């Protein structure tokens, strides 16, 4: 039993819903108790879809448990077919129905519906949302593209884009960006799946010369299956400038085309923005990164090599794909934090004392509490991260978007700092409050938001003069300055921190 307030991932049947909702012509009959329909609002509210997810729930209640829940399932499946006439039906159980063991697959089989029915086994007590999405997509691909079928000629140069789904962080716009790169290279997109694909589109997957797996968490299982059927797969995720260039070169090599039209495209403004002098102050900014493995690993490389940040912490919540995160952590001399406990992440952030946090919705709130600037890089996200405007993370425009959205909170933080510095001026007194940190800025100007020094031996008394000087340091590095100074004082056997100690420590640790 695990105590949880916030979960990074939903149960696996929500993953299956993400695949069904992404597709056309698919209907999902889910054996589930009354109440599980809550998941519909993730799609209608957070992703703001104008139609209900194609899911029929049996919504059984206690009075049904006597033994006719199986009949209830059959009725629901039959009625769902009659009403929606799907090309393909998927059936399965949510966590509670898994316990009553009705076998949706077998029950649906006895109905003899005139469309293929794919039973899903999604173990709710050991697996989670991404696994559910991946497994569902794989089962659909496996059923509709049987192994050993004769290979099509593949004369056209075309590719499939695998992985984008409903409720995916920026999936809609990433697909558009990657499609654009393929267009620049003269490569046709055969099928995008599951997002927007129908079962007949899935049957056409083998027509493409190769696959592009954009989101391994959802698409990798299916991509590996298709690889065994003779379709190579590009696994480089085009997130950031270098990765996008590598992606373009790999795609061009597999397709046998010239990469030049897509490389160094004039719309790629990010490298110049990052080199321009205005960005110099970004150098060595300490950043903490957390999210799904794909986005966290990519973000770390962008942060370190393309923005000149210092990555001071990195982790992901999905253990299944943690290898990439561990690799990049090792490259950066860090140890990866692999956990789905948000309190552990919060502790790690507080300990690392970053100047910027890149994370999920949860880290956004943690950072807000700690008074640290933050940008969102990964699901789970809230409604504001399903924007109306074009806002990809991948490809050429994606790199531009990353620059803007990561630097913006820092500029805001700097503005905050200027306000703090001038807090004794009549225009900028404490009561004037903060512009974007929801009141935390005002707090930061009156008291330090950082926790007390972690180790007892580092504690030293501060003279009033030194304390006053400490307050002149920007709030977002003040905690680190305090810690370093106290550690310095302790290591030099000083009982009190004086003004000079502060500057001696500064010289010692010099950034």
């Amino acid at each position, binding site marked *: *039993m*695990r*105590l*949880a*307030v*916030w*979960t990074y*991932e*939903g*149960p696996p*049947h*929500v993953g299956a819903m993400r695949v069904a909702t992404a597709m056309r012509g698919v209907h999902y009959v889910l054996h589930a*108790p*009354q*109440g*599980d*329909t*809550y*998941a*519909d*609002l*993730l799609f*209608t*509210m957070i992703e*703001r*879809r*104008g*139609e*209900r997810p194609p899911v*029929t*729930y*049996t*919504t*059984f*209640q*206690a009075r*049904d*448990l006597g033994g006719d829940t199986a009949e209830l399932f059959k009725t*629901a499946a039959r*009625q769902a077919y009659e*009403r929606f006439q799907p090309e393909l039906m998927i059936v399965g159980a*949510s*966590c*509670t129905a898994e*316990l*009553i063991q009705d076998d949706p697959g077998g029950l649906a089989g006895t109905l003899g519906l005139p469309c293929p029915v794919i039973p899903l086994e999604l*173990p*709710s*007590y*050991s697996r*989670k949302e991404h696994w559910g999405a991946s497994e569902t997509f794989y089962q659909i691909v496996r059923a509709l593209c049987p192994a050993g079928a004769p290979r099509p000629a593949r004369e056209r140069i075309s590719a499939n884009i695998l992985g984008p789904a409903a409720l995916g962080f920026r999936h809609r716009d990433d697909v558009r960006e990657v499609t654009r790169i393929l267009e620049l290279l003269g490569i046709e997109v055969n099928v995008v799946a599951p997002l927007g694909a129908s079962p007949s589109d899935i049957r056409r997957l083998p027509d493409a010369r190769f696959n592009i797996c954009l989101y391994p968490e959802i698409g990798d299982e299916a991509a590996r299956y298709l690889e065994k059927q003779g379709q190579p797969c590009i696994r480089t995720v085009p997130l950031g400038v270098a990765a996008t260039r590598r992606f373009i070169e790999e795609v061009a090599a597999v397709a046998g085309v010239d990469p030049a039209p897509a490389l160094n495209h004039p719309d790629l403004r990010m490298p110049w923005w990052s080199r321009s002098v205005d960005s110099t102050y970004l150098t060595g900014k300490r950043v903490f990164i957390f999210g799904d493995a794909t986005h966290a690993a990519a973000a770390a490389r962008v942060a370190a090599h393309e923005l000149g940040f210092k990555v001071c912490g990195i982790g992901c919540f999905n253990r299944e794909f943690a290898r990439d995160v561990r690799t990049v952590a090792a490259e950066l001399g860090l140890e990866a934090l692999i956990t789905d406990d948000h309190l552990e992440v919060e502790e790690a952030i507080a300990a690392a004392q970053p100047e910027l946090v890149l994370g999920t919705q*949860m880290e956004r*709130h943690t950072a807000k*509490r700690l008074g640290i600037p933050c940008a969102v890089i990964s699901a789970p996200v809230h409604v504001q991260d399903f924007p109306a405007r074009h806002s990809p993370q991948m490809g050429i425009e994606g790199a531009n978007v990353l620059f803007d959205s990561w630097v913006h909170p820092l500029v805001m933080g700097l503005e905050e700092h200027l306000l703090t510095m001038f807090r004794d001026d009549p225009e900028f007194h404490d009561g004037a409050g903060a512009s974007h940190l929801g009141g935390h800025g005002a707090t930061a100007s009156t008291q330090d938001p950082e926790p007390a020094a972690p180790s007892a031996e580092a504690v030293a008394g501060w003279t009033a003069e030194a304390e006053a000087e400490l307050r002149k340091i920007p709030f977002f590095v003040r905690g680190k300055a305090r810690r370093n100074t106290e550690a310095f004082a302790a290591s030099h056997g000083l009982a009190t921190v004086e003004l000079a100690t502060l500057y001696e420590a500064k010289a010692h640790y010099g950034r």
Partner: protein
Amino acid sequence: MTVAAPLVPTPRPVLRERGQREVFCGLTGIVWLHRKMPDAFFLVVGSRTCAHLLQSAAGVMIFAEPRFATAIMEEKDLAGLADMNDELDAVVTRLLDRRPGIRTLFLVGSCPSEVIKLDLPRAAQRLQAQRSGIRILSYSGSGIETTFTEGEDACLAALARSAPGTPAGTDAALIPELLVVGALPDIVEDQFERLFADMGLPVRFFPGRSSTDLPAIGPNTRFLLAQPFLGETAGVFEDRGAVRISAPFPFGAEGTTAWLEAAADAFAIDPLTFRRAIAPGRERAKRALERHREQLAGKRIFFMPDSQLELPLARFLATECGAELVEVGTPYLHARHLAPELALLGDDVVISEGQDVERQLDRVRAARPDLTVCGLGLANPLEAEGLSTKWAIELVFTPIHGFEQAGDLAELFARPLRRRDMLRI
């Protein structure tokens, strides 16, 4: 009496349907109950789905160290029941050690915990024996047992069972005492308290703002339900000898007047005193409603089932705002508690209980009402079909009871219509 309350329910045809129900389960009640009782903690024993539901329903509240959490059952817990109880004890111990301010712990049952027959009442007893100074109770918020607001009913019923009784044979046991039952926002509770005080009628609220300082329940208790979904709680009160005061629910100027009047009558308050006490509030409510009446008069409104608040709210919209009711759906119709409401609804109003969501949506599409009150899973899809909607959950989270909120309540229904008329895109 402005609004007559009949003693016997009027029999009338009700459309009863079974099928897919697009509703929340009772766990959702935790989201507002934990705010009402700041000294209580709600621990759901359930699955990842339960935690995900709470997170989705609680929205931004989840980030403010809320007083609820889920003990997520995992594969190893399902292997054997003995393990599960040990695991639960460990979770509770860790939780209570971390949150020393907690005075009441609710163990909340879920679908998975009930299907595997994890005995939470016994777990509560066992944990209670180990912990003095903290009250440990249990109730079911599962979807198989409860729909949305029924979670509050189950919680308050558990709390009522643990409330003290009036000591028998004392003088105190003979003097009737008024209790208002149902979790109300603090501001609404204060308003009602002042109104009763102006009539010279002392009142207590259940639950109050503390989960430990509970009013005694006994044969001297006269209770007035503030919410229509409290069937089980009322049952516990009645089992302990308390007497329910039948009344319409306090929505709108007239509903609130009738509700207060029922209590005043039960305590033989002088009618003049009563009128003097309520007159200013009632006038203000009527004035506030005027502004929205124009927008709502003649509008055809369809309620899909959600919270059991549908009938009283439909009555308010029909009798005080001039709206026309197409169909009023409710997850469950408590005929006795709603008898005064049913009496006020026109005979031509279609009332439905339960749901087959696809068939009900067919009726919505056929009727094309001006406004459909429904859940968040249906609202945007209906808007996309060109139908205006009002999402129902807001009616549970927003203060809507009493005189001072009557205008806000009408505004909640008028706003989507005004917006529909304003937009030129």
